[in-house]
């Protein structure tokens, strides 16, 4: 009732025609001042919870302080003495001051070592969530199936390499054509079941000396025989005889004694390698996705005549 008595006359003519404009002016001033002024950034005068110190309003986390103390003293934080904690905090404040100084001097933009460290840190940060997840066997097996060629176990072979030398002063009367004909006949004889010693005696083949007659891994055979003969050898199964192959020193015939072909290792055998390769692939994908995202958000201008 009292309120109505006070405000009633104000809300009726003729006072209303003055009150309302004054009210509008008042509201206008208040709205304008709220829009024109902003809260000033208040400097922190006390260290907030969770921090051990503030350096130029930037905090040093208590967790970091505890971890650093444990690292430097090789003891738990509770066991570290006050003097040790003070020393660690002093070092951390020194480091923070120097980091801030480095940022002011724009060192991350101008120093290659710092740039490299920052790139590694950003990539590690991006990859961390990916690496934190532990894949199950299903995921690893899927990765293994997709990259089977990476898990091949090298094969081995035991092969005899017979050669009929052509040319040179020792074989002046042996032409390539004649050697080809002799080699073809020798292959026929070998495939008919005659021994290598018989062929060597009748056709003049000798052991090339490239192989020592023992079983050797594929890479060693490749090294000894050379690319040309090795490619022929990879196609031969146990007991098979190759067609004549002309190499630099004459006509060659390969006799495969024993051949274990390369095979893909079983998943259970190479599981650890698959896991490591999976982690590497996930990291690479995460960092590449991150770079793509950053590039899509960046405005990149290339100087004329240059390309990327």
């Amino acid at each position, binding site marked *: 009732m009292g309120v109505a008595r006070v405000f009633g006359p104000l809300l009726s003519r003729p006072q209303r025609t003055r009150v309302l404009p004054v009210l509008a002016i008042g509201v*206008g001033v208040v709205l304008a001042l709220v829009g024109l002024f902003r809260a000033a950034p208040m400097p922190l005068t006390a260290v907030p919870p969770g921090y051990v110190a503030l350096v130029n309003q930037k905090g040093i986390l208590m967790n970091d302080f505890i971890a650093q103390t444990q690292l430097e003293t090789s003891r738990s934080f509770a066991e570290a003495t006050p003097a040790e904690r003070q020393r660690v905090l002093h070092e951390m404040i020194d480091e923070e001051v120097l980091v801030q100084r480095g940022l002011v001097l724009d060192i991350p933009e101008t120093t290659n070592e710092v740039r490299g460290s920052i790139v590694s840190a950003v990539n590690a940060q991006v990859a961390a969530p990916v690496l934190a997840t532990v894949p199950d066997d299903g995921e690893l097996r899927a990765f293994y199936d997709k990259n089977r060629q990476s898990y091949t176990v090298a094969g081995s072979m035991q092969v005899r390499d017979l050669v009929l030398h052509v040319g040179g002063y020792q074989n002046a009367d042996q032409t390539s054509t004649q050697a080809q004909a002799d080699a073809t006949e020798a292959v026929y004889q070998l495939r008919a079941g005659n021994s290598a010693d018989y062929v060597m005696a009748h056709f003049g083949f000798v052991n090339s000396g490239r192989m020592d007659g023992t079983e050797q891994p594929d890479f060693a055979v490749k090294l000894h025989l050379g690319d040309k003969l090795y490619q022929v050898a990879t196609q031969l199964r146990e007991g098979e005889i190759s067609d004549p192959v002309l190499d630099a020193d004459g006509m060659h015939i390969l006799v495969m004694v024993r051949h274990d072909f390369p095979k893909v290792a079983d998943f259970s055998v190479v599981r650890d390698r698959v896991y490591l390769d999976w982690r590497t692939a996930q990291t690479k994908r995460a960092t590449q996705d991150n770079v793509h995202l950053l590039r899509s958000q960046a405005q990149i201008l290339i100087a004329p005549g240059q390309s990327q």
Partner: protein
Amino acid sequence: MKRLAWIILCALSLGAGQALAAGRSVSYSTWLVSGNTVTLRFLLPVGEARRLVGVAVPVLTTDKLKDYMLQHVSVDSAGGACPAIDQGYDLGQVDPLAVGPDLYGFELVYRCSDPRQLILHNSVLFGAVPDHANFARVQTQGHSVEQLFTAGHQSLPLPDVGAPRSAGLLAYLGIGLSHILGSADRWCVLLGALLLVRRRRDLIAIMVALVTGYLLALLVSASGWVLPRAALAEAFIGFLVLLFGAAITLRETQPRWAALIAGPGLLLVLAGASLWMHAPWVALAMMGAACLFTGLVLLSRERAGPGSSWLLLVALFALLDGSAMSALLQPAQLSRRSQAQLSVGFDAGAVLIEALIVSIPALVLFVVRTQRIVALRLLVDDLAAAVLSGLGAFWLVSRLWV
């Protein structure tokens, strides 16, 4: 009469760019004196650096600015000029600093052969902008004092023993004086207020309103709780100029409903545009401006004239103008005490020069009125209303989204 006023307004608007009163030109420097080494950290707002383009700096690049800095700051001692040392790492003598998007920062280190009779020289920007001011902080022998470099004070000798003297209140008074003298929009506010004076006591009321506004500004900046949004405040001062133009018109004519709707309507359109451009504070200020405009017009209809409500505009202007310094001083990171001293000097200088500006033409006006040259007064009112409204609208819109 009104047609003549509009013709002159259009002519003036062609040169409105010249009337675009720029904000206060300032830069900041910190001089650390330690033995025979003087380290200078210089902060230059990007807007100020642009003033050098084409005149002192051909193209605005960091390297060109570095060269300019090297030529315009120096240190002398008893042993002669102190050379700026090469800071290594291909930096040269001037090390650019990362100090934020709106500032250029540079660091120079001078090594003097004799640490006695040090003199600091700073002539950055004074050639291009005579009313430029550099807020300096000098730290030497455990003391830290605030100083001021201006066009008339480009050198600062340091005592060999003890603290150098700090810039007194008079120095900051000078800034306040030159700030008002060099700003067309401040002149327009005072002109508008002057033209609304009817009685001698209105002059006193203007001074009271100015002093009240500046005192409020001092209280606001002394509290340290709030800071003005400087660019928006400049736009709002443009709006106040427009309001003065409207107030002069309202004194002579009854406001029509079209004016009542059009004025606030346009301001609300600006508010809407600001919201769309994700500038909520601009929108709020424009809504406040619309309410203020509406209230003023309604009151004028009621009272057949703006009455004394325009004094509120004077006080509002003084509050905004006085608060501008606290926003300008933020990069300088001065102590609360120094900032208060600076603000007092600035506001006192502004009030003094405004009192002078208001009182001299007022005397002329009273002479004219006693001669009863009514037609001349009406012509002046019409012209002034048109000019103030036009310029005010221009400043409001052009500064709104800076």
